[in-house]
């Protein structure tokens, strides 16, 4: 465990040094993320110019939900995105051999290699959105609520990690398909919607089968209505299940990997 922490810290140091070298890139990508976050927030703002409720959620409740969803996504972008995105490309091109030769868990080595500071910087913006919405709602969460919220954000990050690894692992089977990482972005769109908006089949599919709705709704509900064991159980169970499934599928896929060597 200490060995992996040391490896991760070395990767983090390398990523920070690299960011300092390419400062324009850092600024550009931080702006890109900020713009996309603003697009999502503007969508909510514009809709509430014409209505007072979306599935029973007020404007600032929705902002809190969207802010929470963006926060988890920013952490994923910051800690894992570049590494996992490159993993898909490396599997397709055969450069994944490099990771097979490393002395450590292959998935860990491949998915934690790079850290993007631009994503992490924007996580402060997302936190600001959550704090602003909570302030406008007059919320005063207890320390327990905040602790559970943080734990749920961490679980949400694990679920997103699982979803992303799962979709990228498809590259072991569908090597000709580029852009399969888009599955993750498509699914994450659902996490910006309140659970009450899902009815019938959609509720079964996106709330219970895929945990995309639980990921953001569970922490947001904790801040809005206090700690509820039902939500905590749902998100912790989903985190275990999805990361387990991702590891399993990744290793199944690895067996199919035929390398680039001739």
């Amino acid at each position, binding site marked *: 465990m200490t060995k992996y922490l040391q490896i991760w810290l070395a990767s983090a140091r390398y990523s920070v040094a690299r960011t300092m070298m390419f400062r324009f*890139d850092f600024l*550009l*990508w931080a*702006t*890109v993320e900020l*713009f*996309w976050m*603003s*697009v999502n927030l*503007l*969508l909510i703002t*514009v*809709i509430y*110019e*014409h*209505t*007072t*409720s*979306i*599935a029973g959620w007020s404007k600032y409740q929705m902002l809190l939900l969207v802010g929470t969803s963006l926060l988890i996504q920013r952490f994923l972008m910051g800690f894992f995105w570049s590494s996992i995105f490159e993993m898909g490309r490396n599997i397709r091109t055969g450069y994944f051999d490099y990771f097979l030769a490393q002395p450590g868990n292959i998935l860990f080595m491949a998915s934690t290699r790079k850290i993007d500071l631009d994503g992490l910087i924007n996580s402060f913006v997302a936190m600001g959105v959550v704090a602003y919405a909570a302030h406008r709602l007059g919320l005063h969460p207890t320390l327990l609520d905040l602790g559970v919220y943080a734990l749920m954000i961490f679980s949400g990050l694990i679920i997103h990690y699982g979803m992303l690894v799962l979709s990228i692992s498809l590259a072991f089977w*569908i090597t*000709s*398909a*580029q*852009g*399969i990482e*888009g*599955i993750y*972005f*498509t*699914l994450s*769109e*659902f996490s910006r*919607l*309140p659970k*009450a*908006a*899902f009815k019938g089949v*959609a509720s079964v599919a996106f709330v219970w089968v895929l945990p995309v709705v639980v990921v953001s709704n569970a922490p947001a509900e904790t801040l809005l209505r206090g700690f509820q064991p039902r939500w905590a159980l749902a998100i912790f169970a989903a985190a275990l299940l999805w990361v387990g499934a991702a590891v399993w599928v990744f290793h199944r896929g690895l067996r199919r990997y035929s390398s680039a060597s001739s």
Partner: protein
Amino acid sequence: MLTALTKYRHAFLLGLQSNLVYRVNFAVRGFFYMFHLVVVFILWGAVYSGAKDIGGFSFGQTLTYFLVMLVMQFFVGAFNEDYQISEEIRNGLINQFLLKPINYFLYRFSIFVAARLVTGILILLPLLVTLPLLHEYITLPHDFWRIGLVVPAMALSALIQFSIAYCFGMMTFWFLDIQGFVILSMAVESLLGGQMFPLDLLPAGVFRVAQFLPFYYQTYFPVAILTGRIHSLGEVWQGFGIQIAWVILLLGLNQLLWVRGLRRHTAVGG
């Protein structure tokens, strides 16, 4: 003239073939867009649960807007043309066009038109399959002039879409990696091009400003003509005037970037 047409006809046919070959890529993208429609359906369904009409339009009209927007994106939208052009510049593949009597813009545009023809027709297939589920929501106005005018509006939109992508591709002469600029522009385009929400829901002042920007004419303009979000012929003619002005401006910018970019370009090797 005829010889020139033959040249680009070959490029067009090449584009058709290549897009039919990479069917899996299309299927993946089409699948994402279908999921996006599900998000639209759930979100706007929830919005309309608290209001009978939004901005003067019913749920059916709003859903129709997003459906037409989806089809329009596959018919006129530039997907990865900027990357393709960028790669050709970076890898030195454009060198061959500098030595031949081929206009690079027209060559790429011919391929773009072929690609959009294939993706546009292919996206209709899953929509036809889901039509029994969707038909009760589809609400289109019955004015015939809309169908007649949407075709030139689409053609001009395609030109704007391609010209913007071409401009980004040309930026490779100055920057090694254009990905950041492209994704940044995608955020602006998705917002001001009406992909996130119908632009007429914006506050009146902001909407007025948006009408003078090129993004409005990338997809929103033809979609608004067809779905009745543009009410009168007068508004359509005014829109055409601004759209044509943007086409001329962007074509000029394309040429300027090409000429200036080539001055910086170095072709190495035999």
